[in-house]
C-alpha cells in the first residue's frame, strides 16, 4: 500500500474525554495571562481560587465521564493514545481532589513565604495535567511526556522557594536523579518498541499475547528498564534514596503533592504498563515487584524509626506506603489492582492531611518532633486531626488506611504470597512505632509550655478537615470507594 496515495485522515478526537486536561492547562495559562496582563497586582486568592475551581471542575468532569464509561464502556481516542476507562478517570478524580487540597494549602504557604503565587498555581495545574496524562496514556511516549511534564513542574515547584538552601538542594537532587531515571525509562520504551514494533500499549499487549518469541531478551530488558524508571517515581527501594531528602527539603504543600499525586501517577503508569500491557508476562515481573515491595517496606519503616524530623519521618513512611501499594500490584490481578488503587486514593488524603499539619507546625528551623510537644493541650483539634491521619497511616481500623491495608494484604494472600503479607504486617508494626512517637509527643509532653501555636488559615483548615473526614468516612463506610476502585481496573483498547 502506498502511503502517498492515501489521503491523510486525522485521528478522531473525543474532545469530551480530554476536557479535564484542557481545563487544567487552560486554567494554568489563563491564570498566567490574567496576572501578567492585569494592570494592577492580582490578589493572592485569585490563584488559589483558580486552582480550586479547576481542580473541582476536573473532579466533576471526571465523575461525569465516569458515568459515561459505566454506561457506554471504556474507549480510546487520539489514535489509541489516550484511554478513557475507569482507571484513567479514577486517577483524574484523585488528581483533581489532590489538586484542590494542595492548592488550598499553598495559599497559606505562599502568603507566609512570599512566593510567586500565580506561577506556583499554574505549575501545580500543569503538573496535575501531566499526572492525568500519565494515568490515561495508552502509549508509552505519551506516558513519558506526561511524566516529564509532571516531573519538570515538580522540579520547579520545589526550587521555587529559592531562598531556602534545602529547597535548592532537594530540587537539584530530584532533578538530576529524575533525569537519570527518565533516561532509563526512555531506554526501556525504546527496547519495548523494538520488541513489539510500537509504543502503543494496546498494541503491545495484543502482540505479546499472540506471539511467542524466540528471543525475549529485548522485551525483558525493556521491562526491566521501565520498571526502574517507574520504581524511581514511586520511590520504591532501592530507587528511593531521593525521596526523603526531597520530601524534607520541598515546601510542605509540594511534598504533600509529590507523596500523593506524583506517587499515584507513578503507580498508574506501573499498573497500566505492567498489569494491563504486560499481563501475559506476569510470571516474569511479579516476583520482582514483590521483591521491591519487601525491600521498600523494610527500608521505609526501619529508616523512619530513626528520624527525628517529622517531615522526614513521613517521607520515609511514604516510602513504606509505596511498598504496600506494590503489594497490591504484585498480585497482578483485578483484586490486587483495585486494592492498590484504593490504597492510593486513601493514602492521598491521609498524606495531604499530614503534610498540611506539618506545614502548619513547621517553620524555617525545621520540623523536629519536639515542636509537636504538648500539641494535644495547646492545639487539641489539630492534634486530634494529626492523630487520625497518623493512625490511619499506621493502619488502625475505622480509618481508610486500615481498609486499604486490608485489601492489599488480601491481594497478597490471594496469590498465596503469605510471606510478603506477613512481612508487611511486621513492618506495619515498626511503622506504627514511628507514628505513635509523634502521637505520644503531642499528648505526652514533659514540659507544659507546648510548642508553637501558629494560626490556621481557613483554607488549610478545610483541607485538614476534609482529609480527616474522608479518612474516617472511608474507614467506616468504604464500600463506595471499594466499588469505585474495582471498576477502575485498567482496560487497554486499540485506537480506531
Amino acid at each position, binding site marked *: 500500500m502506498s502511503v502517498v496515495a492515501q489521503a491523510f485522515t486525522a485521528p478522531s478526537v473525543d474532545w469530551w474525554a480530554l476536557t479535564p486536561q484542557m481545563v487544567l492547562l487552560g486554567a494554568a495559562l489563563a491564570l498566567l495571562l490574567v496576572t501578567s496582563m492585569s494592570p494592577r497586582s492580582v490578589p493572592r486568592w485569585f490563584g488559589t481560587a483558580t486552582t480550586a475551581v479547576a481542580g473541582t471542575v476536573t473532579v466533576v468532569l471526571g465523575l461525569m465521564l465516569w458515568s459515561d464509561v459505566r454506561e457506554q464502556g471504556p474507549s480510546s481516542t487520539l489514535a489509541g493514545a489516550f484511554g478513557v476507562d475507569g482507571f484513567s478517570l479514577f486517577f483524574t478524580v484523585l488528581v483533581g481532589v489532590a489538586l484542590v487540597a494542595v492548592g488550598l494549602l499553598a495559599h497559606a504557604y505562599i502568603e507566609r513565604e512570599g512566593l510567586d503565587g500565580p506561577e506556583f498555581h499554574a505549575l501545580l495545574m500543569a503538573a496535575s495535567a501531566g499526572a492525568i496524562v500519565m494515568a490515561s496514556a495508552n502509549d508509552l511516549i505519551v506516558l513519558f511526556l506526561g511524566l516529564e511534564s509532571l516531573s519538570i513542574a515538580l522540579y520547579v515547584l520545589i526550587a521555587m522557594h529559592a531562598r531556602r538552601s534545602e529547597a535548592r538542594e532537594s530540587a537539584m537532587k530530584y532533578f538530576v536523579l529524575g533525569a537519570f531515571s527518565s533516561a532509563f525509562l526512555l531506554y526501556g520504551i525504546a527496547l519495548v518498541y523494538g520488541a513489539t514494533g510500537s509504543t502503543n500499549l494496546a498494541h503491545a499487549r495484543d502482540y505479546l499475547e499472540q506471539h511467542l518469541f524466540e528471543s525475549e531478551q529485548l522485551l525483558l530488558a525493556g521491562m*526491566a528498564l521501565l*520498571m*526502574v524508571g517507574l520504581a524511581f517515581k514511586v520511590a520504591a527501594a532501592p*530507587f528511593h534514596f531521593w525521596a526523603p531528602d526531597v520530601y524534607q527539603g520541598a515546601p510542605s504543600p509540594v511534598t504533600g503533592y509529590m507523596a500523593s499525586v506524583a506517587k499515584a501517577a507513578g503507580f498508574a503508569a506501573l499498573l497500566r504498563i505492567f498489569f494491563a500491557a504486560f499481563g501475559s508476562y506476569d510470571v*516474569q515481573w511479579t516476583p520482582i515487584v514483590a521483591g521491591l515491595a519487601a525491600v521498600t517496606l523494610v527500608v521505609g519503616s*526501619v*529508616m523512619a524509626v*530513626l528520624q527525628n524530623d517529622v517531615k522526614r519521618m513521613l517521607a520515609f513512611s511514604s516510602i513504606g506506603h509505596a511498598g504496600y501499594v506494590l503489594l497490591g500490584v504484585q498480585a497482578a490481578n483485578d483484586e490486587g489492582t483495585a486494592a492498590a488503587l484504593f490504597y492510593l486514593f486513601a493514602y492521598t488524603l491521609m498524606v495531604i492531611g499530614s503534610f498540611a499539619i506539618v506545614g502548619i507546625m513547621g517553620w524555617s528551623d525545621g520540623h523536629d518532633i519536639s515542636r509537636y510537644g504538648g500539641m494535644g493541650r495547646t492545639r487539641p483539634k489539630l492534634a486530634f486531626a494529626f492523630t487520625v491521619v497518623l493512625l490511619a497511616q499506621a493502619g488502625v481500623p475505622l480509618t481508610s488506611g486500615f481498609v486499604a491495608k486490608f485489601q492489599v494484604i488480601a491481594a497478597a494472600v490471594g496469590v498465596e504470597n503469605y510471606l510478603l503479607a506477613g512481612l508487611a504486617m511486621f513492618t506495619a508494626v515498626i511503622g506504627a512505632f514511628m507514628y505513635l512517637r509523634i502521637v505520644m509527643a503531642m499528648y505526652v509532653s514533659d514540659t507544659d509550655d507546648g510548642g508553637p501555636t501558629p494560626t490556621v488559615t481557613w483554607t488549610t483548615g478545610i483541607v485538614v478537615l476534609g482529609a480527616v473526614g474522608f479518612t474516617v468516612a472511608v474507614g467506616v463506610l468504604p464500600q463506595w470507594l471499594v466499588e469505585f476502585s474495582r471498576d477502575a481496573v485498567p482496560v487497554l483498547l486499540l485506537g480506531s
Partner: protein
Amino acid sequence: MLELVWLIPALPLLGFVALLIGGRRLGEPRAGWLATAASAGSFGATLVVFAGLLGLDAHGDRAFTQVLFEWLPVGSLEVEAGFLVDSLSITMGLFVTGVGTLIHLYSIGYMHGDPRFSKFFVYLNLFLFSMLMLVFGNNLVVTFLGWEGVGACSYFLISFWHTRDSAATAGKKAFVTNRVGDWGFMVATFLIWTTLGTVTYTEIAASPAMAATTGTAVSLLLLVAAAGKSAQLPLYVWLPDAMEGPTPVSAMVHAATMVTSGVYLLVRMNSVLTDDALLVIAIVGAATALFAALCAVAQHDIKKVLAYSTVSQLGYMFLAIGSGAYVAAIFHMVTHAFFKGLLFLGSGSVIHGMHDEQDMRKMGALRALMPITGLTFIVGWLAIAGVPPFSGFWSKDEILLAAWEQPDIGWLLWLVGLVTALLTAYYMSRQVFLVFFGQQRWDDGVHPHESSWTMTLPLVLLAGASIAGGVINLPLVSDWLFLEHFLEPIFAHPHHFTSGTATKVTLAVIAVGAGAVGIGFAVMVWLKGRVSSERLEPTFLENAMYVDATFARVAGGPGTRAFQATADTDATVVDGAVNGVGWLVQRFGELIRPAQSGLLRNYAIGVAIGAVGLIVWFVTRVAM
C-alpha cells in the same frame, strides 16, 4: 427436726453478717454476747438435729441430706450446696458448736479491752460457720468451702494482732501451708470426680471401689490435704507459729476444731482409703506423734508446749485412722477437743492473769493465785496424760490397741505410741509443775489474778467434759460403746478389735505405766528437783529439730533466690527479648542508614545498582 440443719451454719453466718455491719456500733461486750448467742443457737440447733437423727431407724440408712440449691452445675458435674446429716457429721457438729460456744463465751472475757473486740467475734462467727460447712457439707466441694473458709479465718485470727510482724507472718504461713494441703484436697476431688463421676459423699460411699492405684492416689492426696490442715509431718510447721494468735483462737481453731478437720476428712472418705494408703497414714501419724512429743519436751512458751502437744495428739488420731480404727480417731478427737480446749483456755487464763507473759520460766506457783484455772488445768493434764479414768485414757488406750493390731508393723506403731504417751505425760507434767507449782519466778510488777467468770465458766465445763468424756465410748461393756455403735453405719469396713481381753488389759496397764513413768520422772525433775534439768531441754528439741528452720532457710535462701532469679529473667530475658526486637530494628536501621548519605551521586549509584539488578533478573527469566 432434721430440716433445721441449715440453721446450724446459718446462725453463725447471721451473727457474722450482723457483726460485720453493726459490730462496731454494738461495741464491747454486746458484740461478744451476740456472737456467743449465735454460737449457742447453733449448738441448740445441732442438738435438735441430733435428736431428729436419733429418731431415724438406727439400722437403716441413718442419714439425711438437705439440698439448698445447685451450686456448680456444669456439664456432667453437679455440685449442690447441700448438707449431710449423719452420725459422723452430727458428732463433729455437736462438739464443734459445743466447744465453740464455750470458747466464744471465754473470749468475751479474754478479749476485754481490745480495741478490735467486735472484729474478733466477726472472725469467730465466720470461723464457726466455715467449720460447720466443712462438717455438714454433703459433698467434697462444700466441705472444701468450709475447709478453705476455716483456713482463711485461721489466717485472720492468727494475725489478729497484725501490727506484730510475727503474728502477721504466722498467719500468712498458716494459710500458705494449708494451701499445700488444699492442693491435695482439690486434686483428690478431681480424681474422685473423674473416676467416680460424683463428689457427693453418699454417692462416693455407694460407688464401687476404685482401681488400686487410683484409690491409693486419692487416699494419699487426701492425706496431703489432711496433713496440711491437721498439722502432720511435714506440713505441721504452721501450727506452733499459729500460737501468735489470741489464746481462744488457739483453743478453738488450733486445738479443738479446725485441726481435726483432716481427721474428719479421712474418716469421711474412709470408703476410698486403700490399705497401702492406710499404712502410710499410720506411719505419718505415728511419726508426727513422736516427733511433736519430743519437741514439746523442750519448749518454754506455755502455748508452744500445747501446740506441739496438739500436733502429737493429732498424730495419734492419724495413727488410729491408719490402723483402721476410725471410731478411735473420732473418739480421741472428741476427748482431745475437751481437754486440749481446756488446756489452751487455761493457759489463756494464765497468760491473761500474767499480763501477756507466756514464758513458763517466769511463772510458777500460780495454783494459789488462780485456783480455778489451776484446778481445771490439772484436770486437763491428767486427761491428756492418760490417767484413768479421765477421758484421755480411754481414747488413747483404744488407739494404742488399734495400733497393736495393725497387721504389718503394729508392734512398732504401738511402741511409738507408747513412747509418745510417756513423753506426753512427762512434758505435760513439766508444764503443770512449772506453771502452777514450785517457786514464784515472775517479773516485778506482775500481779497474777484469777480471771472473770466468763473465762472460768468454760474452764469448769470443759474440765467436767474432760473428766467424763470417756463415757461416750467405754470399752468395758459392749453396750457402752455408744460412739462406736453410732458411727458404725458410715464405715465401709468397720473395724473390730480382735485381741482378747487379756491383751487389752495388758496393753492398758503398760500404757498407764508409761504415763506414770513420765509423770514420775517429771516430778523428780521439775517438782522435787532431784534430777538436774540441765540436759533435759536440748536446744535441738527446743528448736523442733530445726525442721521449721530448715524450711525457712530453704525458702528464704535458695527459694527466694530462685524466685528472684525468675523475676529477673522475666525483666531481662523475656522482656529483654521484646525490647531486643526494637533494638535490632534500630541497629539494622543504623546499618543501612549510611546509604542515605545525602550525596546525589550515591543515590544515583543506588539507582544504577537497582537497574542492573532488575535487568539481570529479567534477562535471566528468558524461557530457555
